[in-house]
Every structure is written in C-alpha cells, then in structure tokens.
C-alpha cells in the first residue's frame, strides 16, 4: 500500500542529495578558482584570459562550430567577425554556459568551464550583453545594474528579511556601485526610469552597464552598435575603449567594420563555424579568405 509513497519519497531524497552534492562540489571548485585568480591578478603580464581549445559544437548533425581555437589576452579588445550564421553568437553561448560543447573546451584563467553552471561562470568573471536587447523591462535602470552587482554579495534572503547589518551594508554598497557604473557609461540620468521605457540607445548601453555590474574579467558584447547612427557609434567606440582602459577585457561581435577597425586590438574571423583568420585589424582586412567569405564566393569554390 505504501510502496508508492516510498518510491516517491526515495526519489525525492535521492534527487535532493544529488543536487546538494553537486552544489557542494561546485562551491569547492569556486573557492579554488578564486584563490588562483587572485594570485594571477598579481602578475601584470600579457597573459591568456580566455582560451577556446578545439571547440566543436553540433546541433543534431549541423556543425555550428568546428574545432575553433582562440585566445583572448588580458586587457585587449578582440573583435569576432564573420558573415551571418558563422557561429559568432554560438561562441558567446558556449563561453557563458548556455550551450555545452560537443568536444573541446573553454578555459578561463586555465580553468575549464565545462559543466559549470551559468551563474557560476558569471560569478567567476564572464558577463555578456545580447544581440536582441534582453533587459529586465519591468525594473528601473538602476535595479537592472544592482541585479548585476548582486552576484558578489554574501548576504542571503534571510539577512535581507531581518535587516542584518551586512545585508544593509551590501545593499547600500550595491546601489552606490550601480550609480557609479551608470555614470561611467554616461546614462545615470535615466537611473529611475523603467528599462522598457528607455530610448533604444540607452537600452543598449544599459545592457553593458548591467554586465559591468557583475564586475567581470571578460565582457562579451554582442553587436552593441546594432541600430546606431554614426554619431552614436563614435560615442560607443569611446565607451568601449574606456571600458578596456578601466582594466576589463572585451570580446566583441560586430558587423560595423569602421567601428571594429577603430577600436579592436585584434580581430578573429569565423566562417561556417571555422576560424579563418586571427590577427591585427590591418592584416585581417587584407586577408584573401576573409574577403572571399564576405563577398560570398560560392560554397563549392572555397
């Protein structure tokens, strides 16, 4: 009579234990990484921040990325370009943990991100924006950024509920920091407006601000200039440079060549899921394969 109940209970208990165990392991890994990060930050060398090693990803037979190798160095702006469907956004999705690599791996500070949960990846220092704006529309601009800063807070729900000193302190610090970031990006005047009511350009910048709120080592920008007029693009280019100069590393997907050539330290080119070039902007600009890819030489010819 009760066996059914037992089965359910046993199942629930097993799953709970499993989840708790996994979380534990994850926490342990985090701790290690944190320590290593710290020691690495001490050395001010030009070192590899993020590395894609032989990264391959397939969707039901379609290969989106094919054995891609890519290194991103600390403190640079790397632009990732390529025709539509080349797999650029897929790279972002693998790096941020949205997709799992079919083979190969992603290393941040020489640590594999494989199997890591998305929020952990954010916590250890990768943040992104989205091609189609995905802000929290019902929150104000400020709240959007504070949500980013919440990653590193140590006070939890109960602390907030009962107004523990640390929670109050962190809450206040988060607000101050969010304002700083909004000022840094130049949109502090909009801080009390609901995100969805903001002008398009401000929304794009707010996405960057929200990502900066998580205090990332690596900032991924997915077509940040889409829909901008030339004046806005110039302004954006300055902002991105400013971000780089403030010590962040930037990986950028963009279509606008003048913007890319203007700000990138390096450019990598993807075509049909394969990396076909990776060099200084001026070199890439004259690469034969890149020009072919962009001019659309028939597939059989390539």
């Amino acid at each position: 009579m009760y066996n059914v109940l037992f089965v359910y209970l046993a199942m629930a208990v097993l799953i709970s234990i499993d989840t708790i165990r996994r979380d534990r392991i994850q926490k342990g890994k985090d701790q290690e990484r944190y320590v290593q990060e710290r020691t690495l930050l001490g050395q001010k060398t030009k070192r590899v921040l993020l590395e894609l090693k032989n990264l391959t990803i397939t969707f039901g037979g379609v290969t989106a990325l094919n054995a891609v190798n890519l290194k991103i160095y600390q403190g640079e702006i790397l632009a990732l370009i390529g025709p539509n469907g080349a797999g650029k956004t897929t790279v972002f999705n693998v790096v941020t943990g949205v997709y799992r690599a079919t083979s190969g791996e992603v290393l941040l500070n020489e640590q594999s991100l494989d199997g890591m949960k998305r929020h952990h990846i954010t916590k250890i220092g990768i943040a992104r924006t989205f091609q189609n704006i995905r802000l929290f529309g019902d929150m104000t601009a400020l709240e959007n950024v504070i949500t980013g800063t919440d990653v590193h807070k140590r006070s939890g729900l109960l602390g907030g509920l009962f107004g523990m000193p640390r929670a109050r302190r962190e809450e206040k610090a988060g607000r101050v920091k969010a304002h700083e970031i909004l000022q840094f990006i130049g949109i502090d005047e909009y801080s009390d407006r609901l995100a969805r009511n903001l002008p398009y350009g401000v929304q794009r910048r707010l996405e960057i601000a929200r990502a900066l709120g998580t205090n990332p080592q690596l900032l991924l920008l997915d077509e940040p200039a889409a829909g901008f007029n030339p004046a806005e693009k110039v302004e954006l280019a300055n902002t991105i440079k400013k971000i780089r100069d403030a010590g962040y590393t930037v990986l950028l997907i963009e279509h606008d060549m003048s913007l890319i050539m203007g700000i990138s330290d390096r450019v990598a080119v993807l075509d049909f899921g394969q990396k076909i070039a990776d060099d200084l902007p001026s070199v890439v600009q004259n690469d034969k394969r890149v020009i072919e890819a962009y001019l659309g030489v028939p597939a059989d010819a390539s």
Partner: protein
Amino acid sequence: MFSTLIDQFWSLTLSGIALGFIYVLISLGYTMVYGVLRMINFANSEIFMFGTFATIVISRDFLGNVDGTKSLPLPKLILTITLCLLGSMLVSGLVAVFVELVAYRRLRARGTNKLATLISAIGISIVLSEFMRIITNSRPTLNPRVLEKKSLFEIAGASFRMDTVLTIIFAAVLFVVLDRFVKFSRLGRAIRAVSMNEDASKLMGVDLNKVISATFLIGGLMSGAAAFFYTLTYENTKFNVGFTLGLAAFTAAVIGGIGNIRGAFFGGLSLGLVEVYASSILGTEWKSVTVFIILVLVLVLKPNGIFGEAVQQTRA
C-alpha cells in the same frame, strides 16, 4: 498482488489500449493548441464534455434510439455511428473555436501575459461546465445502447468487443489522418510554421488568426471524436466528465512531449496501459498517484517529455 495482472493480463491490456486511444484523441486537443500558442487549453475538458452530450442528443433525440440490450439494426447502426461521430466532432470543434474567440483572441491580440489567458480559459471552462450542469440538473445522462457489448472474438482471454475494436480502429485512422494532414496539407504546414516561429510566419503572410482558429477546430474535432468513442463505450456522461479525463489526457500529452503529435500518441497509449496495470497491481486507489509519479520521473529525466524537441541547452 500480481495475481489479477497475470490472470487477466491480455484483457487488461486490451482495455488499457482502448482507454489509451481515447486519451490520445483528447491529448491531441491539448497538444495542437499548445503547439501554436504555447498555452494549456484549460477548456479542452469542457470541449470534450460537449461532444459527449452532442452524441447523446443526436442518438437519443434526433434518431430516437432507445436503450435496449441488443445492437441497433445494421443500417440504423451505421447511420447512428456516422451521424454521432460527425456531430460530436462538429460540436466539439465549434465549441473549441468559440472558446478561442471568447477566451483567447482578445488577450492574444494585446499580447499580454500567459497567466491572464490561463485564467480566462479557466473562467470559460467553469462557464461551460456550469451551463451544462444547470441544464442537466447535475444528473448523469444516459446514452442509449447502440452496440451490443458482445465479444467478437477472443485472444488469450481478452475479448474483442465491437465497441473496443471500433474505438481502436477509428482512433488510429483519425490519428494517422491528422498526422498526414499536419505534415502535408497547406494548412498543416501553416500550423507547423506558426508553432515554430510565430513572428516569422506572420512575415511570410500566414493569417495568424485563421491558423489559430483552425488549430482549435482541429483539436476540438479530435476531442469530439474521443467524446463519441467514450460515450459509445461507457454509455453515459455528466457535466464534470471532462475533468478527470482531461487531466489524464493532459498528463499524457506532457509525458509524450507536449506540442508533439506523435508524442501525444505515445503518451496516451502508455498512460492508458499504466493506469490499468497500476490499478491491478497497487489497487485502484493508487492509480492517479502512480501516474503522477511516472510523470515526475519522466520530466526529471527528460524535461521536454519523451518525444519533446531536444533543445541542446543546459538547464538551471
């Protein structure tokens, strides 16, 4: 514990399959609508319920059948089955279109949240079932016997009765027709296009309102057919008949992978079988619990149902 199962295995299996086919048809109602709207059609159980009453009204009042023990004479039998099946499908289909019009369309046009639509659907579901309750005075209604429940032939102790055989054959045929229809017809392609990407299909010139109405209609037709076979087999109905069946059928749709037509087929059949086996092993009182535990297990292992689309995304 297992003695009944062993003793009556084939007969249980047969009734599980027959029940399963009724589930398949109802869960198609859920799955079709879910496919295009990504929304549980909460009123589907009432759409089904109207079909059962349509069957009875046609058979009893229009054709003047009275309850007896024998089958109707063959010409009248064929007439009754044809008219009742078509009538039941038509009524359910129309009720489904009505439900879409009243409870879904306006909200969809405004592009508002799913929950408002869900509550609206729950509201219309209450209205429909209460309407029928008041009309029937809360009483169950009898469907006059059309087919004698005589065994046609027996295989391993399972007696194939006329109604069981009819249900299985017709339901299977209907399923195949629907499957082909959605695959190959123009409307079917439009439905699939909408279910894949609503915005894109709008750009391609698909009339969204028409397609959604058609989807509700088709879902309703399937539930109506289920209603006919249900009434033929169990010979009575009540205003709240849809609730339990609807819940089971929805569960079946989810197990198979909601939004997936073949998933509904698999889910419906396996649910029918699981129900009868579980009832005979654990006792009828644990039937629903077993069903839900299986549901939870399936979803934990395969979060999109067994036939659900395999989205290659990590999960929270």
